[in-house]
C-alpha cells in the first residue's frame, strides 16, 4: 500500500484529474474576498510585504538586498535587507517578472493578491505527495482534498492575505515530503532536493525552526526504537550540513544558524547518529564477543567526549541571559514566558492560546478523525508513519500554545484524517465487494485477502471465498470508487497467486462487515464529509474573507461599507508634505507607509521596544508632555483609531491599556493602576483623572458630544457616556476626521514664537503640572520684566 500504486494508465489519469480539480478547488475557495469586496491586500503585515515587493520590482534585486528603509522607525530606520524573510517577496517578484516577460500585463498588486491561492493549490499537491509516500494514493488524494478546504489554512491564505504563511506552508509540506521520500528510497538525489526545499522554507518563514527540530527528534526516535538504517543516515546527515549552510546564507538568519539554541538539537542528533552508525559498522564486521568489548570502549570514549562537548555548550549557553533561545521560541516552550517578560509578544491577539471552539472552527471534523489516523499509522508502523505521527503530536502541542500555530496543525490533521478516511472507505467498500455468497465457510477454500490497512473492522463474520468467486464478483459488482477497484484488482492478483500456493492451510481470515452495515457506513461517511465541505465554504465566505481594512455591516437599508482607513490614508497622502512624520500606535505603521506613503515612528515589526514604549508613554501622558515627546521626535501628525461612534471594537481606546503597560515597562512613571478605578478600566465619569487627561482620551473624544445624536456622548463600544465631555485641545489641532469618525488625524501645534509678559499669570497654574518646563519660562519672563 505504501509508496505508490501502479494501477495502470486509467488509475494515473484519474489521479491526475482529481489533483487538477483539487488545485482548482483550493484556488477558488479562497476568492470570496475578491468577490465580496475587491482585489485588495488585507490586514497589516501584507501591506509591508506588498511595499517591499513593489520596491523589488522597481529597483531590482541588488537594491532590494541592500535596502535601508528610512521611512519607518524614524529616526532609526530599518535595514530591510537583513531583517525580512525574503522568500515571499522573491517568489511574488519572480512570478510578476515571468508573467510580464511573456507579455501578460499583471500589476504587482494582482500578483501579490493571488500568490496565496496559487500556493495553496501547490500545498495541496505537496500534501498528496507526502501522504502517498506514507500510506498510498487513496490516502494521498483524500488528504489533498481535505487540506484544499481546511478553514485554518484558508484563514491565512485568502486572496489578499499576502503574508509569509502563504508560501511557507507549501514549503513546509514539500520539505517533509522530500525528507520522507529520501527516507523511503535512500537516494542522495532526493536528499539534495530536501536541503534545497529546506532552504526555501528558511527564506520564507521564521517557523523553519520547527522543521530543524522535528526532523532530529524523529531521527532520535528511529534510533531509539531500533530503526536505524543507512537510509536514515542518508536522509539526515546531508540535510544537517547543507541545511545549516543554506540557512546561514539567508541574511535574517545568518550566524544564528550555528549559534542559537534552536539549532543545537540538530547538531546533537548529528553527533549521536554518527556514533550509532559507527556502532552498526563495527557490529557488522566483528564477532559478537569482540563487538561487546568494542561497544564498551566506544561507549566510554563517546560519553566522555559527549560530556565535554555538553559542558562546553552549556558554558556558552549559560553566558547568555535567555540561555541562547530567542524570545519567540521561549514563549512557545513556556507559554507563560511572554506575559511575564515581553508584553509586546503577549499583546498580539494571535499569540493567545486557542479556545476549544476554535479547534472545531478551524479544523472541523478533522479534530476527531485525526486520532483515528494516528491509530491507522500504527498498522503497520514504518519510518514514514512514525514521522507523520510525531508531526501531528508536536503540532497539536504548539497549536495549544498559540492560536497562530493552528496553521501548522492543519496539514498534519489533514494527513491523519486522510489516512483514516481512506482506511475506513477501504474497509467498507472491501466488505461490500467481498460479501460471501454461501453462508457456511469451508476451510479448504479460504483465501487470503491481504490487507494491512483495515484497522476499524470489528469482527463480523468470517468470509470464505475462492478464485471463481473473485472473477465473478469482479465483473458483476459496481464500485463506488474506482481507485478502490484498482487496488482490489491488484489484491485479487495477489490472492490468486496465494491461493495457488497456500490452498491447503486455512490461515488468515478477513473479517468483513455485513453488507447493509457497510453501505450505511459509506453513506454516513459521505454525509460527514459533505458537512465538512459545507462548513469550510461557510467559514471561507463569512469568517475569513474580511479584508479588515474595509468593514461592512448589514443595516436595514442594505450593505453599509466603512472605508474609513483608506479615506484617512488618502487624506494623509494628498494633504501633507512628503517628509512629514506621522505617529500612531504600531498596529497601523505598515499600512501608513504603504498606502499613505509617509514616514512613521513605529510599525508592526516591533523590533525596538523602547521606541514603542516612547509612543506608548506619549499616548498615556497629559497633553503638554505628549506634545513635547512628539516634538522631540519631529512628529507633525498624530492619528488615533476610534470606534465609539459606530461600534468598532478594535480601536485604540480598547488597546490603550497595552500602551500603558508597554510604556510602563520602560518608563516607570507610567503606572497602570493610575488609569484604573478599583482595578476596572473605565472612561466614564468614574474614570481616574490620569485617564481623563491622557492624550489618547482627549484625541479620541474631542468634540465627540457633537457627533452623537442626543448630544450625550454615548460610546457604543464601551457602552457608557464618556467622562469628560467638553474640553479644548491646547497643543493639537484636529485636521481630519473620517466619515464614521473611525480615524482622527491631529496636527501638532507649532511652539509659540514669543512668550508675552501677561502669560506669566496664566502659566502659574501650569507650573504644578509641567515641572520640567516651568523654570525656563520663569527665567524668560523674569528677564523681560527686569
Amino acid at each position: 500500500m505504501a509508496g505508490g500504486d501502479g494501477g495502470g494508465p486509467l488509475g494515473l489519469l484519474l489521479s491526475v484529474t482529481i489533483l487538477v480539480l483539487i488545485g482548482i478547488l483550493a484556488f477558488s475557495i479562497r476568492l470570496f474576498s475578491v468577490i465580496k469586496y475587491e482585489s485588495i491586500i488585507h490586514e497589516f503585515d501584507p501591506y509591508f510585504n506588498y511595499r517591499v515587493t513593489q520596491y523589488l520590482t522597481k529597483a531590482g534585486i541588488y537594491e532590494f538586498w541592500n535596502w535601508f528603509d528610512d521611512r519607518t522607525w524614524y529616526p532609526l530606520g530599518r535595514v530591510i535587507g537583513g531583517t525580512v524573510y525574503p522568500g515571499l517577496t522573491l517568489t511574488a517578484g519572480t512570478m510578476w517578472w515571468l508573467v510580464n516577460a511573456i507579455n501578460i500585463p499583471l500589476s504587482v498588486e494582482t500578483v501579490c493578491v493571488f500568490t496565496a491561492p496559487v500556493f495553496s493549490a501547490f500545498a495541496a499537491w505537496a500534501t498528496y505527495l507526502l501522504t502517498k509516500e506514507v500510506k498510498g494514493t487513496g490516502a494521498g488524494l483524500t488528504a489533498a482534498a481535505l487540506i484544499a478546504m481546511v478553514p485554518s489554512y484558508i484563514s491565512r491564505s485568502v486572496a489578499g492575505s499576502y503574508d509569509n504563511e502563504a508560501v511557507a506552508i507549501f514549503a513546509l509540506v514539500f520539505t517533509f515530503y522530500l525528507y520522507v521520500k529520501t527516507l523511503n528510497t535512500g537516494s542522495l538525489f532526493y536528499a539534495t532536493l530536501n536541503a534545497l526545499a529546506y532552504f526555501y522554507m528558511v527564506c520564507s518563514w521564521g517557523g523553519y525552526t520547527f522543521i530543524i527540530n522535528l526532523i532530529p527528534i524523529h531521527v532520535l526516535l528511529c534510533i531509539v526504537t531500533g530503526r536505524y538504517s543507512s537510509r536514515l543516515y542518508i536522509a539526515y546527515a546531508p540535510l544537517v550540513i547543507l541545511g545549516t549552510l543554506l540557512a546561514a546564507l539567508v541574511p535574517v538568519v545568518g550566524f544564528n544558524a550555528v549559534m542559537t539554541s534552536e539549532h543545537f538539537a540538530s547538531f546533537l542528533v548529528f553527533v549521536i547518529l554518527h556514533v550509532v552508525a559507527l556502532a552498526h559498522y563495527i557490529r557488522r564486521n566483528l564477532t559478537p564477543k569482540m563487538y561487546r568489548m568494542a561497544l564498551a570502549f566506544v561507549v566510554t570514549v563517546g560519553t566522555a567526549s559527549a560530556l565535554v562537548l555538553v559542558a562546553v555548550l552549556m558554558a556558552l549557553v549559560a553566558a547568555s541571559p535567555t540561555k541562547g533561545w530567542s524570545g519567540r521560541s521561549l514563549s512557545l516552550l513556556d507559554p507563560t514566558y511572554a506575559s511575564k517578560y515581553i508584553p509586546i509578544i503577549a499583546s498580539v491577539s494571535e499569540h493567545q492560546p486557542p479556545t476549544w471552539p476554535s479547534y472545531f472552527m478551524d479544523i472541523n471534523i478533522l479534530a476527531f478523525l485525526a486520532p483515528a489516523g494516528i491509530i491507522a499509522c500504527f498498522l503497520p508502523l514504518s519510518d514514514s508513519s512514525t514521522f507523520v505521527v510525531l508531526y501531528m503530536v508536536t503540532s497539536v502541542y504548539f497549536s495549544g500554545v498559540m492560536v497562530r500555530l493552528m496553521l501548522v496543525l492543519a496539514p498534519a490533521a489533514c494527513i491523519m484524517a486522510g489516512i483514516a478516511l481512506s482506511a475506513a472507505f477501504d474497509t467498507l467498500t472491501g466488505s461490500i465487494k467481498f460479501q460471501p455468497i454461501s453462508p457456511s465457510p469451508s476451510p479448504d477454500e479460504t483465501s487470503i485477502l491481504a490487507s494491512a490497512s483495515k484497522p476499524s473492522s470489528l469482527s463480523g463474520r468470517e468470509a470464505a471465498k475462492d478464485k471463481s468467486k473473485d472473477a465473478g464478483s469482479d465483473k458483476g459488482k459496481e464500485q463506488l470508487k474506482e481507485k478502490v477497484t484498482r487496488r482490489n484488482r491488484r489484491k485479487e492478483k495477489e490472492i490468486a497467486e496465494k491461493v495457488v500456493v497456500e490452498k491447503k492451510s486455512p490461515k488468515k481470515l478477513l473479517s468483513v462487515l455485513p453488507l447493509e452495515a457497510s453501505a450505511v457506513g459509506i453513506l454516513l461517511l459521505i454525509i460527514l464529509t459533505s458537512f465538512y465541505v459545507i462548513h469550510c465554504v461557510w467559514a471561507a465566505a463569512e469568517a475569513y474573507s474580511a479584508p479588515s481594512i474595509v468593514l461592512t455591516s448589514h443595516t436595514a437599508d442594505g450593505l453599509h461599507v466603512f472605508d474609513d482607513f483608506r479615506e484617512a490614508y488618502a487624506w494623509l497622502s494628498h494633504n501633507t508634505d512628503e517628509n512629514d512624520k506621522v505617529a500612531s500606535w504600531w498596529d497601523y505603521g505598515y499600512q501608513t507607509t504603504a498606502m499613505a506613503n509617509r514616514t512613521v515612528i513605529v510599525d508592526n515589526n516591533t523590533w525596538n521596544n523602547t521606541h514603542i514604549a516612547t509612543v506608548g508613554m506619549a499616548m498615556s501622558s497629559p497633553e503638554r508632555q505628549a506634545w513635547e515627546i512628539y516634538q522631540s521626535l519631529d512628529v507633525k501628525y498624530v492619528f488615533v483609531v476610534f470606534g465609539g461612534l459606530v461600534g468598532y471594537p478594535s480601536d485604540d481606546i480598547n488597546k490603550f491599556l497595552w500602551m500603558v503597560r508597554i510604556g510602563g515597562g520602560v518608563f516607570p512613571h507610567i503606572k497602570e493602576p493610575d488609569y484604573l478605578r478599583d482595578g476596572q478600566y473605565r472612561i466614564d465619569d468614574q474614570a481616574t483623572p490620569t485617564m481623563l487627561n491622557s492624550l489618547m482620551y482627549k484625541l479620541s473624544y474631542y468634540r465627540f458630544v457633537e457627533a452623537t445624536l442626543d448630544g450625550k456622548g454615548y460610546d457604543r463600544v464601551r457602552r457608557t457616556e464618556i467622562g469628560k465631555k467638553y474640553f479644548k485641545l491646547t497643543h493639537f489641532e484636529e485636521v481630519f476626521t473620517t466619515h464614521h469618525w473611525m480615524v482622527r488625524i491631529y496636527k501638532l501645534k507649532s511652539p509659540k514664537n514669543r512668550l508675552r509678559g501677561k502669560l506669566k499669570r496664566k502659566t502659574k497654574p501650569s507650573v504644578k503640572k509641567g515641572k520640567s518646563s516651568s523654570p525656563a519660562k520663569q527665567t524668560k519672563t523674569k528677564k523681560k520684566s527686569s
Partner: protein
Amino acid sequence: MGSTTADARALVTALRSAYAATPIKLKIIDLYVVYALSTVLVQVVYMSLVGSFPFNAFLSGILSCIGSAVLAVCLRMQVNKENKEFKDLPPERAFADFVLCNLVLHLVIMNFLG
C-alpha cells in the same frame, strides 16, 4: 588491568583483520573521508590560534570538509555490496548523485565564503 589491555589488543587486531577484508573501492572512499576530517582538524587548530574573525569563512571551510566527508560516507553506504537495501541501485547512479550533491554543496560554500 592486564585483561583489559589484552582485550584491547585483541579488539584492535580483530578490527584490523576485519577491515583488511573490505574491497579496495571502499578503502579509497574511507581514505577520502579521513583526509576530509583531518582537514577539519587543521582548520579548527588554525582557528584556535588565529581567531575566528571572518566567521563565515571559517564556518564554510569546516562545513565543506564535514559535508564532503558525510557525502562520501553516503556514497560508501550505497556502493557497498554487502548493503542489502541498495542492491538494485547501480553504482553509477550512486556516484552521479554524489557528484550532484557535492556540486550543490560547493556552490553554496563558494557563495558563503565571502
